[in-house]
């Protein structure tokens, strides 16, 4: 099984590397070994401007998301803010909404003639923002990644004893001084970890710059990669692979760094573990400030884009000088439901999320169990194998999987089936899924399993009779999270799109490229509804959206 896992990860990755040192598509007889792909991209000013923009976005995102996320976590976890319970879910929504959908929503809401821009202009005379500028892209990217920071810092803060904060209060610090001087510095290892994570996500960001960076030509590395599909008129797989190799050269060390940091962050928290009873800090009058801040953030990152998408999906045209009431229509949804491919893409998305998600969780579980509490070399190897796909941009991973299904004879018949998309998704989200499974597995006390061994059960039997039943809830939670992630995924499916393998995410990217905006809006709304269903179910079953 380990061999199959390693093959699923390294074969596509190897293909990417191999392709990057060829002079043409690897399947063409004329292709020969050469570094000309690298020479080309290093000579291309677009590559450098994309690199620069990527760095700006990655740094800017971190600068915006980390302090905001940490403060948000402090307010939610350590203070008596009213309505905390109600806020917990909306705060996490941006994680589960496809950035393509968000980006599209921003264009429709805040673009030069967006719904909100037009209203704003009517009220104040002019629109002070430009949604297509780098500043906007960085800002939106930063704001939509606040939940990631929130997730990690809140779980670290939860483990912090309140005695240290009370000591600060008694020495005369205000709640925000406490946050700044005591609580947040004490969770700095977690923040460092999430800082690297956000920086890393900045390197792979695709959906937002794809849509917002287009009109003014702001490229990032991933959109540059996407653009290379066309730049030379004929396929430039070698160039794309070379760019992907460059991206991986940055992201893979970051992934490894995250792993190291995660371990140290856990150790840090463990020292403080077993915290005394936690008492919440009274915010007093500050609570209105805090609520206003959170409210503003929610409006900007969720309400505005989602409202934009929703509105666009029910009007036939929009913009300056249009009375929206006159152009209301359900035609776009009708168009979606009249078209076989659209219906198929919705059904496929549901299928890949539910059944595919379950099978993926099952697979992750098998890998998890095989290496569970087995501190041998093989397990360490699996650990790294599992992390590797995280470093590959989804777009490229999808393309590599496409090649694999094209040229591996026994897989070829499966290429035009949903299986190929599922496979790509499962590999791309391997690290995430394994983290879910492993954290569930770690909840099981080792002695419960050892007791099983001692009374005569084999490893497999222990897994079946003891470990798996004990993590049932964790598995359900993982499945729902994977469901939402699979619904949200868009870039991985782009190159795998063919009749039978349509999924909403990839369909949106493809339709956006061809300009079928009406349908994109309707599909986006349907996509969000699906994710919403997953979210509602998760809440219904009390699944924790984080660890």
């Amino acid at each position: 099984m380990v061999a199959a896992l390693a093959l699923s990860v390294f074969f596509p990755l190897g293909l990417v590397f191999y392709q990057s040192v060829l002079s043409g598509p690897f399947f063409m007889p004329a292709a020969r070994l050469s570094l000309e792909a690298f020479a080309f991209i290093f000579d291309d000013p677009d590559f450098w401007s994309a690199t620069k923009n990527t760095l700006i976005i990655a740094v800017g995102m971190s600068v915006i998301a980390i302090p905001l996320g940490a403060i948000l976590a402090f307010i939610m976890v350590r203070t008596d803010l009213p309505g905390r319970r109600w806020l917990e879910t909306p705060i996490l929504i941006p994680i589960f909404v496809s950035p393509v959908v968000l980006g599209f929503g921003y264009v429709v809401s805040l673009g030069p003639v967006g719904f909100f821009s037009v209203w704003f202009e009517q009220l104040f005379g002019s629109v002070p923002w430009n949604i297509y500028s780098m500043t906007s892209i960085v800002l939106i990217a930063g704001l939509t990644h606040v939940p990631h920071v929130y997730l990690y810092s809140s779980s670290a803060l939860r483990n912090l004893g309140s005695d240290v904060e009370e000591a600060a209060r008694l020495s005369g610090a205000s709640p925000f001084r406490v946050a700044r001087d005591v609580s947040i510095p004490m969770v700095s290892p977690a923040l460092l970890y999430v800082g690297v994570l956000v920086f890393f996500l900045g390197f792979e960001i695709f959906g937002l710059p794809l849509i917002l960076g287009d009109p003014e030509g702001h490229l990032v590395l991933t959109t540059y990669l996407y653009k290379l599909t066309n730049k030379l008129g004929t396929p430039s797989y070698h160039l794309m692979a070379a760019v992907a190799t460059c991206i991986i050269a940055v992201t893979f060390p970051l992934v490894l760094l995250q792993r190291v940091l995660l371990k140290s962050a856990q150790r840090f928290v463990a020292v403080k573990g077993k915290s005394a009873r936690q008492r919440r800090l009274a915010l007093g009058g500050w609570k209105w400030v805090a609520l206003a801040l959170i409210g503003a953030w929610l409006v900007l990152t969720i309400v505005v884009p989602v409202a934009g998408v929703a509105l666009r999906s029910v009007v036939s045209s929009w913009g300056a000088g249009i009375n929206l009431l006159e152009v209301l229509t359900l035609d776009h949804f009708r168009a979606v439901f009249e078209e076989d491919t659209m219906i198929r893409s919705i059904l496929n998305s549901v299928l890949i999320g539910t059944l595919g998600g379950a099978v993926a969780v099952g697979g992750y579980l098998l890998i998890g169990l095989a290496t569970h509490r087995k501190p041998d070399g093989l397990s360490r190897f699996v650990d790294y194998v599992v992390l590797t796909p995280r470093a590959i941009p989804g777009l490229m991973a999808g393309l590599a999987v496409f090649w694999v299904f094209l040229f591996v004879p026994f897989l070829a018949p499966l290429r035009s089936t949903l299986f190929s998309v599922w496979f790509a998704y499962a590999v791309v989200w391997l690290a995430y899924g394994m983290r879910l499974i492993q954290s569930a597995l770690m909840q099981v006390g080792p002695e419960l399993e050892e007791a099983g061994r001692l009374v005569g059960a084999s490893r497999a039997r222990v897994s079946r009779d003891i470990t798996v039943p004990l993590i049932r809830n964790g598995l359900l939670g993982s499945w729902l999270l994977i469901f939402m992630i699979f619904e949200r995924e868009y870039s991985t499916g782009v190159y795998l799109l063919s009749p039978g393998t349509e999924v909403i995410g990839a369909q949106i990217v493809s339709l956006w490229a061809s300009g079928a905006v009406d349908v994109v809006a309707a599909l986006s709304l349907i996509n969000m509804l699906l994710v919403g269903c997953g979210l509602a179910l998760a809440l219904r079953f009390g699944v924790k959206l984080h660890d």
Partner: protein
Amino acid sequence: MNTFLPASRRRFGKLLVATCVAAAFGAAPALAQTPSELAAAAAKEGKLVIYGVTDNEQANHLIREFRAQYPAVQVEYSNMSTTELYNRFISESAAGASADVTWSSAMDLQVKLVNDGYAQPHKSAETAKLPDWANWKNEAFGTTYEPVGFVYNKRLVPAADVPQSHADFVRLLSAQADKYKGKVTTYDPEKSGVGFMLVTQDKQVNGAGFNDLLKAFGGVAVRVQGATGTMMERIASGENLIGYNLNAAYALTRARKDPSLGIVLPKDYTLVLSRVMFIAKGARHPNAAKLWVDFVLSKKGQEIIANKADLYAIRGDVEGETTASGLKKQLGDALRPVPIGTGLLTYLDQAKRLDFIKQWNGAVKAK
């Protein structure tokens, strides 16, 4: 015994055998298949795989009628972008077999594929009806006659501003550079194969005027997009006001639903694209493919293209507004169909292409 012969000798041997067999049975050469024989052979194959860039909605009109006529042939139509089609077709061909028929508006890429030997010839009563420029070596066939023009926002562009020719357009942009700054859109030649092809055709047809055009684009900081739909969305919303080199066929479809879009076909010259179709050499359903090509080029198929699919018919004997003959009445000699042939390959040469893109970027991005 064959094992020791070099590959070419072996192939020659096979050919020899085939010829002998054919001679022995006195079989008719494949070309002389009658339509009913073709339909029977296609029915036996039972299936047809098409890769096309035409939207499902439009393609479906053709497919529905085709299925009604030949119910035994299942049609599997995949809609994708031009580059995706090209990439997919060559990688799948390398792996074994790909689509039976490809149908793309990226005329240059289609010609390249045919030129690289990916197509098989087909000759029939229907292919004979095509104008010469639209039939290349009986392998690549132009199927439509789609003019390219200006699309503008009727609500926001005053009638007096609406350009009627390329020269008008350049004048408008230079005269009202402030008003149109950031409000003019066209294809990004780096992202769109069709856009690239159109703008290089412009360069050939427009001559000296082309440089003025580039300068005008630079003056208003033209917004470039990857696709017609995105451009039309922005023109309709008022984010952009005028689009250059938009496919009138698409614009017409949208203008029917959206009264804010106006279309102009320039009077000095109007470029005309034709969707190129060819039958793959390695087609698994060659007869069904031939049947399909004949159907698309038939009078009936062309009528569907003109009247239902909102594309323009290429066959001279189909009448109406959205046909080649209709356009000829309107624009006469100003029509400049892009001929299908090796001329399209010029800019697929990497160095030339990058040179052109450099020239474009240098002019357009200059402030």
